[in-house]
């Protein structure tokens, strides 16, 4: 079954913390690098956790700051104050 979800982020410093956090919190995720862009694919579910990103940035990171680094995504969104999930299937 094809239930792939993805998120694509810019290659800025802040986005690097988000990318690292996603890859740690979503063990099945795979990363592809393009010029100026990183795409992360995962089967079924991918998560961005506020705490994991804050820890890496060393400051309180508001989950909606994701909009500043986001390029694209695919999947159904489930968003709360602490987690932003992409899910499918």
């Amino acid at each position, binding site marked *: 079954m094809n239930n792939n979800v993805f998120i694509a982020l810019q290659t800025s410093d802040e986005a690097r913390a988000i990318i690292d956090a996603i890859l740690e919190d979503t063990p099945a995720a795979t990363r592809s690098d393009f*010029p100026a862009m990183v795409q992360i694919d995962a089967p079924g579910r991918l998560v961005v956790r506020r705490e994991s990103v804050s820890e890496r940035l060393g400051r309180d990171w508001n989950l*909606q700051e994701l909009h500043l680094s986001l*390029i694209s995504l*695919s999947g*159904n*969104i489930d*968003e*709360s104050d602490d987690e932003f999930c992409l899910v*499918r299937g």
Partner: protein
Amino acid sequence: MNKQASDIAMKGADTAKTTPRKLGLKERYNLMTRDLGWDTTYQPMDKVFPFDEFEGIKIHDWEGWQDPFRLTMDAYWKFQGEKERKLYAIIDAFQQNNGHLNVTDGRYINALKLFFQGVSPLEYAASRGYALAGRNLRGVGARVACQMQAIDELRHAQTQIHTISHYNKFFSGLHENVHMYDRVWYLSVPKSYFEDAMTAGPFEFVTSISFSFEYVLTNLLFMPFMSGAAFNGDMATVTFGFSAQSDESRHMTLGLEIVKFLLEQDPANLPIVQRWIDKWFWRGYRLLALVAMMMDYMLPKRVMSWSEAWEIYFEKNGGALFEDLSRYGVRMPKYHEVAQKEKAHLSHQIWSTFYNYSHAAALHTWIPKDSEKDWLSEKYPDTFDKLYRPRFKHWEDLAKKDERWFNDGLPMLCQVCQIPMVFTEVDTDPTRISFRESDYKGAKYHFCSDGCKDIFDYEPEKYVQAWLPVHQIFQGNCGGATLPEVLAWYHFEPGVDNGDYDLSPDRANWDRWTGTRAAD
């Protein structure tokens, strides 16, 4: 103040001396969006919103609308303001440091010309379209999403004009994109596409643009192409591109939501929505033929081929999307398998067309360099060497004899997508042009494909009114019967804006500025 809000305000007052309770995201969103809507009392709702029923869509409960991104208006302004500050700082730096000289090659600018002539006016059209859709949908969640998107699209049109104005100081073809969009033959392709959507009802409009275009197809434009801009040293374009695309993520989720919402509301909506998905997949795919050419031929350094991008973004991710939607009874768009078969031909056929007609286009064309032809062979092993390399060789030989080939005949256009009839029967004989036709009220209409013919046959009264550039030239509505007259009407400067790149002032300037001589 309604009850929920006053309860919260009271609670806030009670606990003011301790810590005020912080609202959760969902609560905050509800108060700042849904709660701002009201039912009209001076006039019945049906009279205030007269256009959200005639398409046959049945909505029983607008409260069933889910907004995936719970972005309130105040947060929206905050984040959009931050995006603008970043973008304009980069545009300033780009202008001050002669950023245009850092792109890989002067040929690259022609991709920007096509983008600015054909895509930026669509952003403005989208702003108008969403303002209209927001006015015509009575559900408050949908109206807030349309309002934000209308503002986003206006921002995209503006940031693109501001960014590209720097290139306009140094290169041709960027001087009058809005005028050109309304008149030029190849720009009638994007223009007619968008006007088809805007003249539909509000649900069809949102399904066509938010779902079929933004969700299913725009990743093909913005991801590989903008990443390609970065790869080719165009700091300004990649920045506005990704700044726009971060808004697109919200637009895409609106697209997915509208489709799920319509399908959950009433089973009678399914056949209507499926027909829109079929129609707008095909319309959008045909429009993206221009993007296929940009990716394979116009970027001096390439990120991925059109064929690879189609596999990643349509076959893999689009496939997952439609599997997900199959629970509602939705199937893959009709003729997706044709698009899959055409992927090894599309960019070559479109670039050849522009090569033929670039004396009538406000961008320059060229024969790919040998290393670029080899890249095309590698990416298109089954088609390039066999069908397209020999054609380029022929034209190259003619150019060496000072007989650069331009086609002086006007092509027949497809009545629906308005692209010249250049697509071929890839299944049976890829050298044979694909022709379809329908008779309607005593006249014959021509199409490039079964996809376009189906669209016409369902709504012939709409498409018989199409403003087809070639017909208009023959009818004498485009400045005159000769090429110079038509080009003057387009506001093109002959010998500057049009023709072969090698012979263009753009190339002479580029060589002079960068100190390079034409090696090959």
